[in-house]
């Protein structure tokens, strides 16, 4: 056979060519980037992380002062990201479970309500929902001079929610000072918009995942459990749920990672998550490549970690094949 007719040989040639083209593209991009950076007098490196950040962060779980370094500003942003992701995941899971139960009810009113909810939140863009909640707080609520005061110590204003906080000396009530309420717990409009928006959106998907999982277990399983004399509650807990979990967990992993990634939309409402901090850092230092690199690395690491943890849990609930 002539050599160019040999299929195996041609396959190798094409693969070598493709790999070569890809490599030269990478080399060309790297070379170009380096040349452009040099032309603009930009230096690449992570030295800036050790310099004082100097910009403000409006709210954070970890304590932050503008005199802290850039690396700490990143950490503070990451803290906010993880915080919002965790409470949203928790809230959305509880809400989702309720939705799934609602949609499985025989009562048409309950079913209708669940379906309407899911269709509404699943079929509008998340960004629009976040902006809606943000506008609802900042435009819909009264000014700080005439706050809504439904319960003692609870104030709803366009500057967010003020609530009594638990402290060592009992209840810490918010008190009106000259410009703001001081003390107590303040949930900013940015936080409220992020929390509500992300939770309600994710709950719609989680509800469907759970309902799908429950419905995928053959009806005969429940019937058999009941026939064996298990109470309906026992049938649910011992037969239905363990089998449904096996189906639910893999898509739930994706959903939790989605919540994490969607939290970067905090940029649109101004909640200082890690992407917001990155944007500000790039603006102040001009170190765009490094900033984005750190952001990608952080998200990659957390997503992989979530995946691994969920896979471990999945292997525990999976069908044991011996």
């Amino acid at each position: 056979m002539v050599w160019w007719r040999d299929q195996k040989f041609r396959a190798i040639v094409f693969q070598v060519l493709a790999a070569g083209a890809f490599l030269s593209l990478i080399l060309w991009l790297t070379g170009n980037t380096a040349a452009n950076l040099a032309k603009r007098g930009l230096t690449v490196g992570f030295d800036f992380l050790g310099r004082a950040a100097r910009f403000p962060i409006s709210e954070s779980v970890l304590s932050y002062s503008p005199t802290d370094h850039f690396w700490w500003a990143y950490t503070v942003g990451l803290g906010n990201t993880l915080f919002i992701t965790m409470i949203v995941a928790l809230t959305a899971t509880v809400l989702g479970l309720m939705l799934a139960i609602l949609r499985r009810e025989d009562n048409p009113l309950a079913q209708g309500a669940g379906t309407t909810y899911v269709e509404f939140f699943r079929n509008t863009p998340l960004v629009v929902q976040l902006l809606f909640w943000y506008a609802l707080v900042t435009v819909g609520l009264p000014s700080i001079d005439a706050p809504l005061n439904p319960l003692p110590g609870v104030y709803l204003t366009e500057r967010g929610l003020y609530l009594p906080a638990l402290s060592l000396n009992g209840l810490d009530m918010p008190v009106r000072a000259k410009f703001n309420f001081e003390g107590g717990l303040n949930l900013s409009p940015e936080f409220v918009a992020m929390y509500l928006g992300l939770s309600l959106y994710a709950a719609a998907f989680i509800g469907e995942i759970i309902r799908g999982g429950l419905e995928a277990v053959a009806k005969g399983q429940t019937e058999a459990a009941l026939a064996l004399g298990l109470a309906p509650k026992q049938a649910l807990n011992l037969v239905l749920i363990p089998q449904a979990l096996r189906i639910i967990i893999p898509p739930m992993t994706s959903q939790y990672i989605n919540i994490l990634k969607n939290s970067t939309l905090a940029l649109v409402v101004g909640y200082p998550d890690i992407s917001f901090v990155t944007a500000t850092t790039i603006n102040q230092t001009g170190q765009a490549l490094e900033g984005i690199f750190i952001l990608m690395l952080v998200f990659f690491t957390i997503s992989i970690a979530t995946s691994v943890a969920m896979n471990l849990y999945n292997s525990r609930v999976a069908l044991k094949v011996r």
Partner: protein
Amino acid sequence: MGRRGLAIIGFAAALSGALAACSPAPKPASDAAPAGKAGSTLATVQKHGYVSCGASQANAGFSLPDDKGYWRGLDIDMCRAVAAAVLGDQDKARFVPLTGQQRLTALQTGEIDLLPRTTTWTMARDANGVNFTFPNYYDYTGFMVRAATGATKPADIKGASVCVQTGSITEVIFADVSWRQKLDLKPVIFDNVSATRQAFFSGRCDALITDASALYSVRATQSKNPDDYVIFAANDEANPLTPAVRHGDDQWFDIVKWVFQAQITAEYLGITSANVDEMLKSEDPAIRRLLGVEAGYGKALGVREDWAYQIIKQVGNYGEVYDRNVGKDSKLKIERGLNRLQRDGGLMVPLPFS
């Protein structure tokens, strides 16, 4: 490229060299305006018949076209003064709207001859290819608050919520002020200008922080009643906004510097656009030198002898330009403050015209 390509390049280079050698020497265009050396900015401007200036995209009081499309503002008048001095007509100026990121590149690449666009004189910029002339406006960072609060200085707004725009030096100044004076200010951070301002007027914040010139402009154009708001400095740093030219053309650098000097010296000597014709008859040697009655000063600079007369007649002295665009005769009503003459307690120092 082979040997033939190189040969062609060599030939082209030789040819252009020969052409340059036999091109005729430049002749003075007229007695009034000596021509600049070939290749200089002055020569380019004279050849085009207009001065090309960088402008803002929209900055009321500094550079903004009016409803007939005629550019107006303090920075615009700086450019018109150069046009009046060099070409004898303040309208022989063209304006190129530039973003903050484009402006220095546009100057360095020769797209514009002069950059009078609220550009702060910083060391990094000065060292990287541009020459700053004289500051034509000293700005500062300020807070705007509601007058009803009674606040008149940063210490009065302890604990207040402040609307801040991200990605600007203001953000850093805000953090510095709050931290240094232990004011515990609460930042509300936005990434666009209009959202920041709306949030302040809607009551989301107690204060708005940005350049004072912008605060005055916002107060004049966006508030229901400007008197309901007060503006005060956030710190004691002045921010010199300075027209800049390219590196490497000393003559053009000198011309722009002295065009501005002519305007503050005219104010110092009491020469205005209204009385400049009368002043031509003055016996005062300083006035005679400035207005070119005593010849030689325009020639030394490389421009027409009546250059300063044209600036004052067409554009006005610095006080007139200030009052008309940003001061008491404008909507902005910014106090002269640091921008008064040194004689009156400001930072504008007239250099000796001799």
